[in-house]
């Protein structure tokens, strides 16, 4: 300690916390802690080539057919929110994980974990919505399961899904294929889903007209692939938002990604809510948006195809893949300076999907 007679003395700072003995909410954020679990627990135990790709879906070959295979779990709170509910979200989220691999989604499974005491009316509403979303998207829920846990062991209702689809032979999208010079395309405004959910949360509820963007993106993807096959990879930026999805691509492809701040579309209401709550829209979840990394020469053709689809009407180029800053996402600000866009550390909003 410095001179104790002085007003200003030395700090009493904390000892570091390095113990990794407990699962925290941040482990489910889709950000750095999630990646830590993946690399330290799951991958070492389950390692195989399909899993190692770390895409939103695995692509496995059976008798010459390339199957896209994915699973997802839905724990969103509240169950019903402006623009959707856990049932439709389960269908859209699963389809999107298949679609961004270039697959045509065909079949889903739905496993329900119900908490004792849940009203049958609520369950019926969720299942009706799930069915409606599946029918609209042209997929069938072909198998399912139901489990019930004691009151207090769950929170109303969780859904786990599987998705199966077929990837055309000439389509090969993966996060490790971004190349310097490629363009980064975003399909529309970011942050709608996360803010729509947040506006409903107990303790945070504020008046808002923001709707979740929850939507199935497979038709948009198919429109894009019909325009060109020079798409390197796609992602739907859900948990962890745009920044986490782009950081994954930068890391997997060992490239830099430079964004231009003024090109990233955010609705005024979402910006306002983010300003008020101290959130960055780059980290807020989306459920009906995609990013695509495309060869420089085809960006125009891809955008043209996207603009014809209602879900891609606001699509635009938001950045470029670079040789420098490998593994990093950077942003040119409106003032011409450059800053890092880091992956989410910890958790902004738990149970957003």
């Amino acid at each position, binding site marked *: 300690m410095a001179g104790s007679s*002085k*007003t*200003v*003395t*030395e*700090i*009493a*700072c*904390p*000892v*570091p*916390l*390095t113990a990794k003995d*407990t*699962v*925290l*909410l*941040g482990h489910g954020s889709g950000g*750095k*802690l999630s990646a*830590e679990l993946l690399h330290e627990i799951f991958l070492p135990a389950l390692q195989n080539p399909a899993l190692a790709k770390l895409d939103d879906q695995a692509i496995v070959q059976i008798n010459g057919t390339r199957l896209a295979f994915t699973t997802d779990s839905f724990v969103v709170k509240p169950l019903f929110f402006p623009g959707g509910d856990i049932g439709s979200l389960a269908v859209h989220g699963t389809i999107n994980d298949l679609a961004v691999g270039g697959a045509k989604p065909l079949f889903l499974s739905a496993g329900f974990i119900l908490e004792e005491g849940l009203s049958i009316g609520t369950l019926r509403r969720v299942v009706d919505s799930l069915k409606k979303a599946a029918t609209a998207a042209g997929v069938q829920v072909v198998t399912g399961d139901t489990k019930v846990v004691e009151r207090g062991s769950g929170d109303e209702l969780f859904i786990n899904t599987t998705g199966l689809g077929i990837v055309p032979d000439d389509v090969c999208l993966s996060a490790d294929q971004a190349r310097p010079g490629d363009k980064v395309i975003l399909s529309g405004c970011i942050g709608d889903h996360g803010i729509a959910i947040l506006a409903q949360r107990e*303790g*945070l509820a504020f008046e808002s007209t923001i709707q979740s963007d929850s939507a199935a993106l497979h038709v948009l993807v198919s429109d894009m692939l019909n325009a060109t096959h020079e798409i390197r990879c796609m992602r739907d930026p859900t948990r962890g938002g745009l920044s986490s999805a782009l950081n994954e691509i930068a890391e997997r492809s060992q490239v830099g990604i430079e964004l231009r701040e003024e090109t990233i579309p955010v609705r*005024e209401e979402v*910006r*306002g809510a983010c*300003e008020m*709550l*101290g959130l960055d829209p780059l980290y807020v979840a989306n459920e009906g948006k995609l990013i695509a990394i495309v060869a420089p020469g085809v960006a125009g053709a891809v955008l043209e195809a996207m603009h014809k689809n209602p879900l891609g009407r606001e699509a635009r180029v938001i950045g470029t893949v670079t040789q420098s*800053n*490998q*593994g*990093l996402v950077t942003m040119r*600000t*409106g*003032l*011409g*300076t*450059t*800053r*890092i866009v*880091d992956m989410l*550390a*910890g958790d902004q909003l738990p149970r957003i999907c």
Partner: protein
Amino acid sequence: MKYIDEYRNAPIALGLARKIAHLATRPWVLMEICGGQTHTILRYGIDELLPREVELVHGPGCPVCVTPVETIDKAIAVATVPNVTLVSYGDMLRVPGSTSDLFRAKARGADVRVAYSPMEAVKIARANPDRKIVFLAIGFETTAPPNAMAAWQARREGLTNLSLLVSHVLVPPAIRALLTSEQNRVQGFIAPGHVCTITGYQDYEALVREFAVPIVIGGFEPVDLMEAILMLVKQLEKGEARLENQYVRSVSYEGNRAAQQMVAEVFEVADQKWRGIGIIPRSGLRLRPEYAQFDADKIFHLDVVTAEEPAECISAQVLRGVQKPIDCRAFGSRCTPENPLGAPMVSSEGACAAYYRYRRQGPIAKEA
């Protein structure tokens, strides 16, 4: 967005930067007090747009960063008492105490809830008469009025199951402590606009007179900060020391009287420990004796040992503007937002976190 976009206007901000470059003939060290201002500076690269003569150092105005480690330990201790619900601002959950943090306490079963407003704690207390609700009431003059309001409302309603764990700090005594420190390099201050919105700026005028140091009350957007820096450089180059208000759209001389009255009703000024700085006389707030029944310290007999400082953490220097986060050997390697050694790496308003998030010069950038 109105009242935001105008203050992020690039031509205006860059025009102000050119004026600063034109005016500055000698080296000047300026400090922005508030963590929100530090965040804007790093996010928009304001410092990169300034001439070499003007150096910005970052101040102690991050409420999470200066909350003493004992307060975190107390919060964890009280959160683990059966039948207690601890309600806190979100950023506090990741701040390391001596051996744990509130996120880990929560993961192990403590009922810890995040709120944006202390009135949420009042609501929870009302709805759960059989539970004891403790609100972690931390922050500067900005959070003092709502925190006071929670205690006032609880008293009015006769709520007996709500209490406050108070660790409140005040800006002017901290500026005084910085100015009287032998290590001080700061020649001009950007005072925190939101704090002054509440308090007005009489106290800052007194500092200007006593120390002959220019102070400009500044806002939080790029244009605000550029303009505040320009105002300071103008004064310094002319050898003046005045109080100026850049943030006129929010700050008045008297401040928010209703908020001040609410604070005075519930709190009184007291000596306060600042993490990174130590005890500063009369630099904090504690509950008045009339509100003792809402004092979590007294109700739960919170008596916790002071923690040891990790030798590597230089947050003491960072919070006083003596060193920058990138001067730290642990920055970006052994100290990251996932595994913070000190509070400035935890809070979204902390200087270390802002550097890590937006800039990351130092070990990581070199390896990359």
